[in-house]
């Protein structure tokens, strides 16, 4: 035990286990049988659109909601019956929830005071944590005198100073402007590594999730759609929702047909026909990413071994580093990204083009 009376968290198991969590508000089912295991020291992200239940889920871990069914374990301890103030779980709120009537120092010291830590110890730990988040100079300011980024760091300092077993972050970057967001998420990640703190981060922003997470759980409609590392989710989405939610995807519906005794995926109108692996026999959709397609003028010579599709440029958008074409292939519109070089003249709308695609880049999904 360390001086504040909490269990020493540095070596103990602080993983979070959710088992069979179901929760409803009135008739609305918000969480439908969630099972998740978050490892000790892991940076874990709940990713999903608004209303998917991700915020409810971390509020549940913090003790602000109670589930109708299921268990929440932190380490080996079942915590469902504990009120928020008896769980050693630190939460950073989306709004930061800094108390306006207290200075930065008082805000940060609050949790330690509640834990009856001695005054000298409080001073030392508050100084240390303010130093850690680089706010020592602003200790005597009020929250209203700080910028958004500074407020965010106070909220973080206030939470980690109590050395929680688990750190919960509810969309902590959403109130920052775009540049600051990138910087803060890096700092957050470094800090988390240094403290080896089990962290659950809630966001609807896939870029935030990809750049910070060890593992991501994609949530939709109260159900965990898939769990995995950012790249695994991107490369091998389990279903259309995940494929669409993580990055831009071309989705073509159709069915597997046999051609010369080999399996081919054929779209309903027959405009897209591609060979497909033996293992994807029941596929109903194929998915591929815009940047994996190459666009050529139709008279260009193609490298061998590539799949080819013919179409017409319908629309194009200049996005800076890339030009995104929308190409009509039969009844399908496929997005194709071409990297943009300075001074290059893009293909004009209406031009007939050929698309080439490596078959390894095609993901077959059966729902």
């Amino acid at each position, binding site marked *: 035990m360390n001086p504040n009376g909490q269990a020493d968290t540095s070596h103990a198991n602080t993983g979070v286990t959710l088992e069979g969590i179901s929760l409803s508000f009135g008739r609305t089912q918000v969480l439908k049988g969630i099972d998740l295991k978050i490892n000790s020291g892991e940076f874990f992200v709940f990713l999903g659109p608004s209303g998917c239940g991700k915020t409810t889920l971390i509020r549940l871990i*913090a*003790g*602000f909601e109670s589930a109708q069914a299921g268990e929440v374990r932190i380490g080996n301890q079942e915590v469902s019956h504990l*009120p*928020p*103030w*008896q769980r050693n*779980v*630190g*939460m950073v*709120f*989306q*709004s930061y*929830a800094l*108390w*306006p*009537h207290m200075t930065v120092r008082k805000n940060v010291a*609050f*949790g330690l005071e*509640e*834990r009856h830590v001695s005054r000298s110890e409080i001073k030392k730990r508050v100084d240390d944590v303010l130093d850690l988040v680089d706010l020592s100079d602003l200790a005597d300011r009020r929250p*209203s005198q700080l910028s958004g980024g500074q407020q965010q760091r106070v909220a973080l300092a*206030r*939470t980690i100073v*109590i050395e929680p077993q688990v750190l919960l972050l509810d969309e902590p970057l959403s109130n920052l402007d775009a540049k600051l967001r990138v910087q803060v998420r890096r700092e957050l990640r470094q800090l988390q590594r240094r403290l080896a703190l089990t962290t659950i981060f809630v966001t609807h922003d896939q870029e935030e999730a990809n750049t910070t997470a060890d593992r991501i759980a994609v949530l939709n409609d109260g159900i965990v759609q898939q769990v995995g590392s950012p790249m695994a989710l991107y490369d091998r989405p389990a279903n259309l929702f995940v494929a669409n939610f993580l990055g831009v995807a071309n989705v073509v519906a159709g069915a597997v047909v046999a051609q010369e005794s080999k399996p081919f995926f054929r779209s309903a109108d027959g405009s897209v026909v591609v060979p497909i692996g033996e293992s994807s026999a029941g596929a109903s959709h194929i998915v591929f990413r815009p940047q994996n397609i190459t666009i050529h003028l139709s008279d260009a010579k193609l490298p061998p071994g590539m799949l080819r599709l013919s179409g017409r440029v319908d629309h194009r958008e200049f996005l800076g580093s890339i030009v995104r074409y929308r190409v009509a292939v039969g009844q399908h519109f496929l997005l194709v990204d071409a990297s943009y070089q300075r001074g290059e003249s893009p293909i004009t709308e209406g031009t007939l083009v050929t698309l080439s695609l490596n078959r390894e880049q095609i993901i077959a999904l059966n729902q």
Partner: protein
Amino acid sequence: MANSEFTKHPALSLVMLLIALFLILFLIVPVVLVVFVAFQDVTTGQFTLINFKDFFNTALFRESFWNSLYVGLMTVLVASVFSMPLAYFTSRFEFKGAVIVQSLGIIPLIMPPFVGAVAMMMLFGRNGSVNLLLEEWFGINIPFMEGLNGVIFVESLHYFPFIMINLSAALNNIDKSMEESAQNLGCSGFRLFHRIVLPLAMPGFMAGVSLVFLKVFDDLGTPLLLNVNNMLAPQAYLRISTIGIKDPMGFVISVFLVVIALASLWLAMLALKGKDYATVQKGGGGLSKRRMRPFEKVMAWCIILLIMVLVLAPHFGLTLLSFGTIWSYSILPDGFTLHNFKAVFSETPEYMTNTVLYSFLAGLIDVILGTAIAYIVLRTRLVGRKVLDYVAMSAVAIPGLVIGIGYLRTFFAFRLPWLADQPLATWWFMIVIALSIRRLPYALRACTAALQQVSVSLEESAENLGAAKFATIRKIVIPLMAGGILAGFVTSFATAAVELGMTLMLVSTNADGPLSYGIYVYMQSAAGRGPGAALGIAAVFVVGVCTLISHVFIDRRQKKLGMRQVG
């Protein structure tokens, strides 16, 4: 720049000048003169502090000063005790009683404390109903109404809603996450309330407290009717009405009343400064509410019912008194009759007609001034418009009694040749002007709020289509402001109808007196209590009905125009 503004709005500049003259003549000059006289030697007219020295050398004045402070502070304390549980229940729990609690807020607007004071004596006095029952059952007698206790009791029952409403607004402005983050860090129960909720609600609470303190400190009617004379306001009144307008003590006391009123407003502003604690985030809102457990629900209802009974006691007592025959040393009146109502309507109908006339005229003046000032402040850049606004609003801090004394002093020397050389100060129309000055802040606030809702582009499009300035104001602005103007009129009308401190100073003959004056005169004698109460009921009825009608009217109009009502 200023020049071009004047040429742009020549007519409005003239209107502004007239309003400024009106305010200078009927607000600034009388009040300044009161302060001036307080510092003037009676015989030589030189500047002196002798009057203040005399004040503190007189035991009765010293006692009155401390008594007024004591009553003000104790009222705030008692009113807070009433307010806290009610504000807490409504902001913290899913609770059906919340609607009842919130509607308590209009009661002090409908009936000022002095009207029910005598009725409270009958209910809670030494030989009142409650003590008679207590003596019968337990052999005890609780001095609810003895001396200063009575003033504190009556005032706090009447004014606590001001604290309650401000406090619950403040509580509702605290975001849920403020509490949750504290819980997350290990804080709960009473510590949570004490460390987070209470400090965040403090500014709202202080706003309510200063308002109540101000009202109580300046109140003349309640102590007079409860026969408590050793307080500041009654002393000022008694000095002027017995010794005369030349006696400086009334003026010295007036200075104290004004200074303390300003000081309490200033303290409230200081308490609020830099503390905009409204922490509600978009999409969030209010403290986290939970359902009450059955036991808690029973307790909450008990507390609410107890407070309700107390709040309605003056109204109940007044009703009993007005319909009662003889009520003395008994729990209820000996019998019931309509005689009191007949008496007041046949003997002194002028109290009713005067009230309607004075309040109507005062309300009319207020909305005309209010609309004009609001328009000048919000729609022009005329030099001095802000000052005009501040001066008009400042009347809120000047006790009615002080305005009354100031008018007597300022306008007594002017004679009205067409009224047999009657002094201007005692002409009935001066009561109207005094009432309109005193109630101008209410009307001005309502008109300003109404005009803020009217988009400038509505006016610009009218002008673009060829309407001149005054045609635009008449055809576009005023119809769109109508709801707010009416609200301002009703508030001015209703509160003017029951103003006492000022009317007591300015009414020279009973024939000129309004309702409040009539109530005071009747309640002086034991025999007059019944008819006095009947007048009180009439006053509550008039004010209540007007308020109700205007609420319905404004509501319907706002719906029709599809406008949202703002505070």
